[in-house]
């Protein structure tokens, strides 16, 4: 299997249209030009479409939901209908340059398994999740209520999010699972947060590989 060489490129966040989700531009900066990308839980394929248009990636998505699957296919993406909880058995070891799990980790039941599967299939992986340690979440908990926000829009009784974690938790997870953190970017709205990220950042983004 031939694979184009991964070229890390610097992408300026401000160059992209506002309609794209805040994390897309950072993900684009971590994905090589012309590389092969697998987007897990790809929704309607917006990220894949974005990466195709700016980086000419060869992209595949995985999506379980019928309506999302259809929208993704209509957007011109390759999309495989599968439940991520069942693993990634249709994908060979090291068959992708980058495997992405964007804001889906917290909704996975088999959290450890999906991360291990991503590390098996991808040379590198990108994982993003809402940081439960963000101060506004802490404030709501201090006020005696479960956090509800733009990034965590659910009530406690209808949330698909079963494995919420903080940045410190995920750092520890990586350490315990022998995962190398290549890069970490924490953002709040569209701004990067470097000071006290576990308190001030609401979206955590990691570029990882197996040790």
């Amino acid at each position, binding site marked *: *299997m031939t694979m184009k060489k991964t070229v890390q490129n610097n992408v300026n966040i401000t160059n992209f249209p506002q309609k794209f989700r805040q994390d897309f531009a950072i993900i684009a900066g971590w994905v090589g030009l012309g590389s092969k990308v697998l987007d897990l839980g790809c929704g309607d394929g917006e990220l894949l479409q974005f990466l195709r248009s700016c980086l000419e990636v060869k992209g595949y998505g995985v999506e379980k939901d019928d309506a999302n*699957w259809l929208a993704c*296919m*209509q957007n011109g993406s390759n999309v495989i*209908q599968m439940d991520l909880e069942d693993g990634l058995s*249709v994908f*060979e070891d090291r*068959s992708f340059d980058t495997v992405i799990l964007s804001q889906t980790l917290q909704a996975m039941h088999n959290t450890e398994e999906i991360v291990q599967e991503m590390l098996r299939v991808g040379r590198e992986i990108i994982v993003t999740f809402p940081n439960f340690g963000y101060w506004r979440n802490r404030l709501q908990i201090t006020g005696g209520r479960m956090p509800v926000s733009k990034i965590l829009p659910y009530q406690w009784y209808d949330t698909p999010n079963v494995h919420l974690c903080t940045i410190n938790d995920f750092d520890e997870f990586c350490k315990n699972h022998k995962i190398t953190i290549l890069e970490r970017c924490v953002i709040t709205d569209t701004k990067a947060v470097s000071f006290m990220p576990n308190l001030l950042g609401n979206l955590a983004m990691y570029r990882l590989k197996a040790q």
Partner: protein
Amino acid sequence: MQENNSVGIVAAQTAHFNSPLTLKSGAVLPQFDLVYETYGTLNADKSNAVLICHALSGTHHVAGKYSGDDKYPGWWDNLIGPNKPLDTNKFFVIGVNNLGGCHGSTGATSINSATGNPWGSQFPVLTVEDWVTSQTLLADYLGIQQLAAVVGGSLGGMQALQWTIAYPARVRHALVIASAPNLTAQNMAFNEVARQAIITDPEFHSGDYYAHGVVPRRGLRIARMLGHITYLSDDVMDEKFGRKLKQGIQYSFDAEFEMEFYLRYQGDKFAGEFDANTYLRMTRALDYYDPALAFDEDLSLALRKVEAQFLVVSFTSDWRFSPARSREIVKALLDNELTVSYAEVTAAHGHDAFLMPDAHYHNILRSYLSNVQV
């Protein structure tokens, strides 16, 4: 509504081929006919042709009716027509009766010119590969170098897959629906029981029943009854028939449960219109198809020359061609970095779901086909 987007009144045509065709088995057909239908208009570039490959008991009559009085349209009429998912305003659609079939193409019921009698037992055993080769000859005959798409369900899906393997430059898209890269032992076992039902029917006469003026009706009937059980899911059979009785318990072995009436009706209908020799050969073609065999059972290697783009579709309740089998095709396509989308449609109808007009399923096909360039 159905009438507005129907292809309307259609007629079958026959293509005659005079050159001998050497089959995979080594047998040679000195000449043969393929009967086919077309819907829509072939464009000037001849780039909008879509071939429909039929399954075990299908025919070239895929859409439309032969006359206004026809009770039923072609077998995939819900898919094909103006503004339907496979839109005949855009595509030129071809339905063909497979070689060895019993609906007009040369088969066991045809006259063998060497003897002046029906071929019967002497008609060769055909393979999926042979069908595809004969279909390329039909494409040549129609002046079509490259198909926009090949579409098939079940055994038809195997033909679509085979097109992309054997003739990579001649097909741009393959829609492989409710299919598999080969049959499992259990699946072949159903075929074997069906064939045994036919072969052990005293009226089979070793396949030369035409000369005796009889047909092995009982065998065919049982074969079809067995088939129908495997085409439906447990749930849908339960929903459709449950334990319902027509007239209460009679303490007899006549049909009492509604399920029994259904199976007997389907069996009788089929035995009256399908040829037993053809049934044997169709099931054998299914059994033998195994493109990975020549590649150490490695399907990915078998597909390494494929260029076509794929849509693979399976149905959750299909246990005869289960989603897991479709995923094997998907994996092999992914291993070759081919363009592929895969849908696993939630459906109750088992294997038969591929013929049903489920809204989501039809949306999938409509969306995929609308992205196919012609």
